[in-house]
Every structure is written in C-alpha cells, then in structure tokens.
C-alpha cells in the first residue's frame, strides 16, 4: 500500500488555556515570510466559531497547517495535500516533521504566551484518502508495520500504544500515545 495525503497531529497540553485568536496574525506572518522549502502558503480559514471543528487553518498549496480541535482534541496538524515520492515511512516522516516544525514555531511565538505546547505524548495519524486507505482492518494490517517503524524511530525505540478509530466511515485514524514524555525538539531530532 502506497500511502499519500498523510496527516499528523500533535496534541497540546491544557487545551482549555489556548486562545486561538492570536494564531490569525501569527499565520498571516507566515504567509508574509513564506518560510521556504517547497511549501507555498496561501490563506487563512478561521473556524473558531465551529465547536469541535478545524480551528484556524493555514491553507497551503502542498499542505494545510492548522490548530485543529476535531473531536475536541486540540492539536497542531499538518494535512499533506500534494503527492509525495518515497516510501510510506518517508511520507509519514514528512508530515510529522512539517507538523513538528510548525508546533516548534508556535511554542516559541510570544503572541501565544507559551500556552500552546505539545503535551509530550499524544499523536494522531490520519490518511486523508478513503480510496487509498479506507478505515478498515485490511488497511491497519497493510499499513501497521510501516506505522510502527515510523513511530519507533520518532520515539527513539521508546514504548508507545496505538489504537484505531472504529467508525469505518472515518478517515483511517491511528491514536498514538507514547509511554514517556518527549519535547518537540526530541522528536525532530529523532526524525532528522
């Protein structure tokens, strides 16, 4: 199974303390700067008014970044839209690195007053294409080994648990919980 359109979301700690409003000027700043790489950042979609929604989305051409509150689980999410060359593990790493780099910038941005921080252990992985990866047992089997390899690398061989969304209508979704706490820098180093 060749994975594409991988999404990775890193959950934040104390989500009730995070104010999404300052994200709007922060994301506008990113569009002004166009931080580089292949990513072309285009626009901002503000869905703060939607409960358990996508939050604030920075729309890009190759991928979207968001501080996403789907299922009332607030986290920094990268949604890869453009196709990628490479193995499944490389696709997973690309999405995870993109999300982590965004999270790192957000953690450091003074406008967010240090309130948006990775909780250290909760990660969600989605495949945003039901034809490639329907949310079925077969996908779990086909994709499980690559997902575990990727997670082992990211968590430096540390323990973690994986559970899956049960509703077959949902995107293929893996809920990952690391046994120990990691910083964003730890994870980025591990994926380098």
């Amino acid at each position, binding site marked *: 199974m060749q994975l594409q359109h991988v999404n990775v979301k890193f959950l934040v700690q104390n989500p009730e303390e995070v104010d999404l409003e300052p994200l709007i000027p922060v994301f506008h700043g990113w569009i002004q700067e166009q931080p580089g790489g292949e990513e072309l950042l285009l*626009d901002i979609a503000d869905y703060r008014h939607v409960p358990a929604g996508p939050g604030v989305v920075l729309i890009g051409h190759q991928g979207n970044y968001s501080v996403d509150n*789907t299922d009332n689980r607030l986290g920094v999410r990268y949604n890869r839209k453009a196709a990628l060359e490479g193995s499944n593990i490389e696709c997973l790493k690309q999405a995870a690195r993109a999300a982590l780099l965004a999270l790192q910038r957000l953690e450091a941005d003074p406008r967010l007053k240090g309130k948006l921080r990775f909780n250290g252990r909760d990660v969600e992985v989605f495949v945003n294409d039901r034809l490639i990866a329907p949310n079925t047992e077969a996908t779990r089997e086909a994709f499980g080994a690559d997902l575990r390899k990727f997670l082992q690398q990211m968590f430096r061989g540390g323990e973690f648990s994986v559970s899956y969304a049960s*509703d077959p209508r949902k995107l293929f979704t893996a809920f990952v919980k690391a046994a120990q706490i990691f910083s964003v820098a730890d994870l980025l180093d591990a994926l380098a």
Partner: protein
Amino acid sequence: MKVSNSQWAEKLSGKMPEHLAREIDIFETEVALRKSGKIDERLFAETRLRKGIYGQRYDNGQRHNGKKVQQIPYPSGELTKGPSTMWDAPGMQRIKIPGGGMNAEQLETMADLAEEYSDGIAHVTTRQDFQLHYIHIDDTPSLMRRLAAANITTREACGNSVRNITACPYAGVCQDEAFDVTPYSRAMAKFLLGHPDVQNFGRKFKPAFSGCSQHACGLTSLHDMGMIAVTRNENGVEERGFETYVGGGLGAVPYHAKLFDDFVPLGELLPLTQAISRVFARLGEKKNRSRARIKFLIQDLGIEKFRELVLEERKTLPSDPRWAEFAKEGEAFQELPLHPGGKPPLLGTEKFQRWAKNNTRPQRQQGYVVVTIALPLGDITSNQLRALADIARRFTRETVRTTVEQNMVLRWVSQSDLVEVHKALEAAELAAPGAGTIIDVATCPGTDTCKLGISSSRGLAGELRKRLTEKNFQLDEAVNNLHIKISGCFNSCGQHHVSDLGFYGVSRKMAGYAVPHFQVVLGGQWENNGNSYGLPVIAIPSKNIPEAVSRLTGRYAENRKNGECFRDFTARIGKVELKKMLEDLTRLPADPSDRSFFSDWGDPREYGLSDMGVGECAGEVVSATDFGLAAAERELFEAQVAWESGQIKQAGEASYQSMLRAAKALVEIETPVVGNDSEEIVREFRARYFDTQKFFDPFAGGKFAEYLFAAHQNADRPYTQDSARYLIDEAQLFIDAAHNCYNRIGAPAIV
C-alpha cells in the same frame, strides 16, 4: 492533487446515474484539454462555472499580505482556468441541493468530500446549496463522481443557467401551507436540469417555491420566478396551482417579483416556465451583465407586455409528456415518520428547554416536530455531518433539509423522542439554541473567500454572534426575534435587504486611509416571503457595527409600542432620528494610536494597504473630495426620507442630484473648476473616469457609472414609486463606487 483521482471513475462505475457519469467524463476531458492549451480559457471558465466550480479570492495569483502585494508562484505557472484565474489557485465548489432535501447517505458523502478535498467544513448557503472551499480544479471530477454516486449533481450550480431550485424546508409539515410543494420543486429541478431552453441565458435564473404567502421560508419575492402554493375550488373539487411571480431579485438594486398569474394550474407550470425561459433567452440582455437578469427585461417591457410575449411563446411549444406527469407528482410523493407520534416531554433540563424554545416547531401532523440545527455561519464539520446522518437514521426516515437561514432541519421527529434527539445533537455539538433568533446571523462568505467581497461579513457575523450569545438570555423577547443578515458587498448574497438589521460591505477613506465599513440597512422584512426591502441609512466602520446593533436593539426594546415590529418601529422613529443615533459611530477613535479601525474583523492585515496615502493624524485631514462625497451621501439620505414620506418626485430628483455631486467630487480631483451644470459634470465624468475606466469596479466594470448616465438621460421623466426606489439604490451604489474609485486613485489629501 489527489493521487486517487484516476481511480474513482472505475470504482464508482455503475453506481452513478449514466447521464451524470457521462457529463463528468466529458468535463474531465475538458480539464485535460484546457491543461494542454486546447480550449480557450473563457470557454473553459463558463464550462467549469456551469459545473458549479467558482474562482476564489486571490486566484489571480496575487495577494496583499498586509505589507505588500505578494505574487503567488503556483507550481502550474501561467496556466489558467479562466481569465486571470490561475490553475492551481484554490476554488469553491457549489453543490445544488434541490429544495434542500438530503438523506443520510448524502450527508455522509458531503462529510467525506469536505474532509478529503476541502478543509473539513461544509458550508450551507442562503439558497440551500452546499459550498466547499479551497478545492483544487484537478480534484473536481472525482468530487463530482462521488456526489453523483449519491445522486447529487453540481451541474448548473453556477453560470448563466437555472440555479438551485429552492423550496420551503417545512413544506409538507407546515401548519399554514396550501399543500406540500416538495414534489413539484423536485420535478421542476429535474425537468429544467440541462433543458435546451435554459442554456442560452445572459445571466442566472433562480426559481423558488413556497407553500404559503405569509412566512419567509421560500423567499419567493426575491426570486426570478417564485411559486406560491394555492388552491381553488372548481365545481366542488379542490384544484392545486401556483400563484406565480417573476422578476424579483436582490443583487445591487433589489426588485420585488411581479405577479404573473394568480393561479397557474399544475399541468401548466412547466410549459409556462419553458415559455418564460425562451422569452428571457431571446430578449434578455446578453452583453451588459449588469442588466442581464430577467428583472431588467421585465422592467423594460412592463409586466403586461412580458406576459403577452410569454403566453404567445407558450402556444408555440411542442407538447411534452412530462408536463402532465408533473401534475401527478403530488399524488406519488409521500414522506413518512419512522416512529409513532408522541406527546411533548413534560420535563427536561433547563438547557433542553432553552434549545426546544427556538429550535423545535410543531408539525401539522400531531405528535411530530421539526428540529432546527443552528449552524454557526452555515458551517458544519465532517464529523457533525456523519453524526447528523446517524441521528436522521435513528429518529426519522432520513428527512433532512437545508434552509435559507443557513441551518438544517430534521423533520418528522416524534415528540416522544425529543429529549433523546437533543442529547444526540448535544453529543455532536449540534444543539446550539437560538435558531432563527438574533444570534442566528446569516452571512455570505465575504472577504474570507469571495473575490467580490469588500468587507469581512463572516468576521462581523462571528463577532455579533459571540456578543449576542453572551447576553442572549437577557435580551428582550422582541429583540431576540429580530434577524441580522450580512453581505460582504452590494451583491446581497447575505440577503441583507430582507432583514430587520441588514449590513453590506463598503469601503470609505478616513484620514487618508481605507477603512472597512458596512452600510446599515433598515426596514427590510423577512416575513411574507421577504416582501419588503430595507434601505441604507448610514455607513459605519466595521469595528463600530456591534455598537450600532446594541444601540438600535436597545432603543427598540425601550421604545417599541404595542407589539410593533422592528420595521414599523424604524418607520415611526424615522431615518433622520436613526441616523442621528448612529452618526458619532462614523468617526474614528480620538486616540490616533488606535489602529484597530484600519483592519477588519478576523483579519489583522491593514485594510486596503496598497490604496493608502501618506499617513496623517487621524481625524484632521479632510480633502475636498471627502467633503463632496459626504455631501452626496447627505443628499441621498434626504432622498430616502422623501421617498418614505411619499414625496416621490423629490426623492427621485435628490437621488439624481446626489449622483451628480459624487461625480463632481471626483471630476474636481482632476479639474478643480467645474460648474454645476449637469451636462458638463456628466460629460467631464464620462471623459475622465468612464472612458479611461478609472471608475470601473474590478468586477462590475462600468455598471455603476451607467446608473449615472441613465439617471441623467431620464432626468426629465416623471418618477414612479418603483423607479424612485430603484434610483435611490442605484445612487447609493454609485456613491459607494465613487468612494472606491477615490480610494483606488489615492488622491492627495488637502487640509
């Protein structure tokens, strides 16, 4: 963009209606041909528009990023999908939902598409459509195939064709309707889709059905063709038919639909529609888009002549067996409940009671209610759509509809299930109370995604919703029942004309800077199918609109007399007094370091930065042009007051004079000495601003200048109530355009 795009055709083979599958295959070929440069961009633009694929803001490849205009280096380079519309630029997909009716599978499909191709949000529009934003053109054939497999088409969701046919979402269960219009609206949608007689219009054509005349749910007054269910008794037998109206429309200058026939029998409705379509296609304006809606044709011909032409055309139509089948639709159609009707719950939590108060409505059928799901700004997530599909299956026979208030309704809910339905909606975060009240603000996309947006209608709507929700339960009941509707520009997609408090986006120059504003429109009426249109009172900076709402609603709560509605209240108080109440809100804050007014709601970029002149101290720099435009606004306001007091001649003359004043203000930027002779002003204006296209709106072109030329040409004609009213609206648009022009040309300020 999606890697799976190449696989959907095969995957869904045999699951799509054959004609839709074929159309999508053809469209996919057209996409490929355009990519290889074998189809002209204009032709491709109309092709995609007729499939509901719109451009979106910044699709011309540039965006003001708050500091400068930034070129957007899309990977496909110079490839376009229409004039000045870059191939890779995100676009919007409109999806027609005839009469707003959806089943659970369709909700689930919408959920999947919003998640996979858009940003996880599906948006309900003021015409019962769905819209998905940030869609890549390469993904659209797959998206359409997946819709087609759920029996939904995007065909003719845009373009110069018959748009979504809307219908009252309470049809069939309403206490007051003559009969259920659902089967007829669906049959008409099916009949007209792709019909050869509706392929050659100069502009769009929007039909709507209503089961009664007194409620707003169908909004027939503001449609190109409006059908209201009526019955008559012929020899003791009840016969169904439609009171049929034509030529309504909002847009820049709103028109009330005119009565075409007070009773069109069922068997005659389709041929009549065909005949109307043929006359519109043959005689309607084709070159000048701003005069191409059927309302202008009817205005020019007069309703009597139009009717005569249509009836003549009717005689020439070859008979079609579908006409007679249409009449039988009502007999065949049946919508049933899943559970037996029950009694209303005796108890319930306070939360439940609060929700049930505005979000449930008894059906005609005893023991059942319609439940309204209030969607904030019309937005719903993919997960919520799936949850709603589950709820629709669990409690009903999947009887869900979208509404023109950008909500969704669940019909045929047994009263004995109501507590459980509320719990299920609450679990899906779909149990927001206050449906149809002042907090349930309707809005178009505005500057968020629309290319025509001038001010942030969604930003303002979100802010008003937040503030009003905070004090919702302390609000006076009469205030709570008001409607707020917001459009990002004069084109009225937010239907601001038919609201108690309506707003539409304009820009004004203050202290040398462009400042986002909204025109406050008062006196509209939502009830009676949107039968009364409000008039602009005053333009206020966006950031002061919440205060304006607070003052207006506060005064209404304090001063209303004997159950007076808001429209009657504003008429009694009068525009002069209303304007006086709000006048101080037109000014900038005294503190010159407060820059908040120079950006819009939810968008921290300085508004219209590229149009700015050299910064000066706020409130001190006023140019002669500012004075001239302000005088034009004043004169127009007097015209409105005159019109409302029945002084039609004065209203018409003052409107015309206000346009001349605005034109003169612009002319004087270039040639300071211009007299008061109207010929000279119009001649100079034409030469300096029209012929040079300096006055042209980026999207409406010279439309607003033509309002001046027409008013000037017709200055000696007597004004009627209607013509004076139209002129007031046209003058307002001309003055707004003059402000925009002034902002664009950035004339130096004169102290």
